[in-house]
């Protein structure tokens, strides 16, 4: 089971910082990340985020868990940029992706989902006038975070079943049950939400 992006309790400065501030930093870094154009600048920014993990008291394993799923993407993007723009540009582009994912991970690992949702609902509040259901958007965020380990769990079970039947080479034998079981889970979750009065 994955612990990707899930809250890890703690009392560090990063944990205690208001969710709104952390989200604002994430958005701000995302917005200005295109200004980083040397490996030195990107390296410094990544270093600062790693320092954030240290201050938050998170283990190196937590950090690696955030970065590991990116490995193939970073290799592919990096290889492309090495061929087209050279090493320096490849380091900048892959570094910026890593920076943003690590920073997003730091925010979710140190902030309760309810705090994130409440902040989002507050920020989106004024948009109610133009028909945006802020609570629904907040719930969508919570469900998205909650669904990550569920879908990973389903994927692991499907892969085990595939191995047990000697079908590990078949993408179809993997994708079809994964999609069907994920949809079934979504259906059951919808029913559970209705039972808990979410539509009321």
């Amino acid at each position, binding site marked *: 089971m994955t612990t990707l992006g899930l809250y890890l*309790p703690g009392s560090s400065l990063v944990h205690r910082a208001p969710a709104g501030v952390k989200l604002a930093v994430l958005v701000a870094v995302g917005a200005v990340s295109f200004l980083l154009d040397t490996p030195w600048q990107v390296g410094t920014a990544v270093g600062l985020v790693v320092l954030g993990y240290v201050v938050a008291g998170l283990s190196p394993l937590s950090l690696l868990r955030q970065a590991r799923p990116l490995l193939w993407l970073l290799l592919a993007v990096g290889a492309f940029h090495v061929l087209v723009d050279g090493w320096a540009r490849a380091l900048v582009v892959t570094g910026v992706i890593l920076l943003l994912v690590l920073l997003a991970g730091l925010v979710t690992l140190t902030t309760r*989902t309810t705090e994130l949702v409440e902040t989002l609902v507050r920020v989106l509040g004024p948009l109610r006038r133009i028909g945006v259901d802020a609570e629904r958007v907040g719930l969508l965020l919570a469900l998205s975070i*909650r669904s990550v*380990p569920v879908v990973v769990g389903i994927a692991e079970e499907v892969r085990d079943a595939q191995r047990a039947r000697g079908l590990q080479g078949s993408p179809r034998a993997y994708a079809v049950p994964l999609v069907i079981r994920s949809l079934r889970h979504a259906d059951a*979750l919808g029913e559970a939400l209705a*039972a808990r*009065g979410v539509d009321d």
Partner: protein
Amino acid sequence: MIEVDHVSHSYGERVVLRDVDVRLPERRVGVIGANGSGKSTFVRLLNGLVLPTEGRVRVNGLDTRRDGRAVRRQVGFCFTNPDAQIVMPTVREDVAFGLRRRRMTGTERDALVRGVLARFELADHADHPAHLLSGGQKQLLALAAVLVTDPSVLVLDEPTTLLDLRNARKVAGYLDGLDQQVVLVTHHLELLEGFDRVLVFDEARLVHDSTPDDAVAFYRKLMA
């Protein structure tokens, strides 16, 4: 009091419940039957998850079609698979989720959540990711998340099917101690011991309605 007045339900051409007419004032009501007999549809009628194609369902005088919101506040529902019922990433957050629209201060809400977690022996797991709990703990969390809203009726659709015997007995033990009216669908027939009344469903009909011993004997004969 649950009142089911001549209720039928169909999914398109397929009739899954046929003319069920029953009043349930008892505190402990069991529901048994083969797979596909209509028992899950029956209990889904009780909090308005399913609306009757014909007939009417009322809970404490509230009509599930007309007063769905009020009915759902009074009738908590627990599903077979707790993974599908747990909405929030951590244990504490999932229990608090049910209280999000209640008018209370954060302190009051935290106290309620803490109390329920302690009651279900989940206090030490409050900030743990819900998906890392054991199967038994997940079902207890699902139960805690429903009971924190203090419903007057608790409906459970096969809550012990995915659990081992020890955890099934643990869940049954918690159900025993509840003040709420409990309607329990189960294949674990021993959990019905001490219940006031048991309904047996077969092929979309309520075919038997009696004491646990008598109903279980009837069901065993039916399945033989």
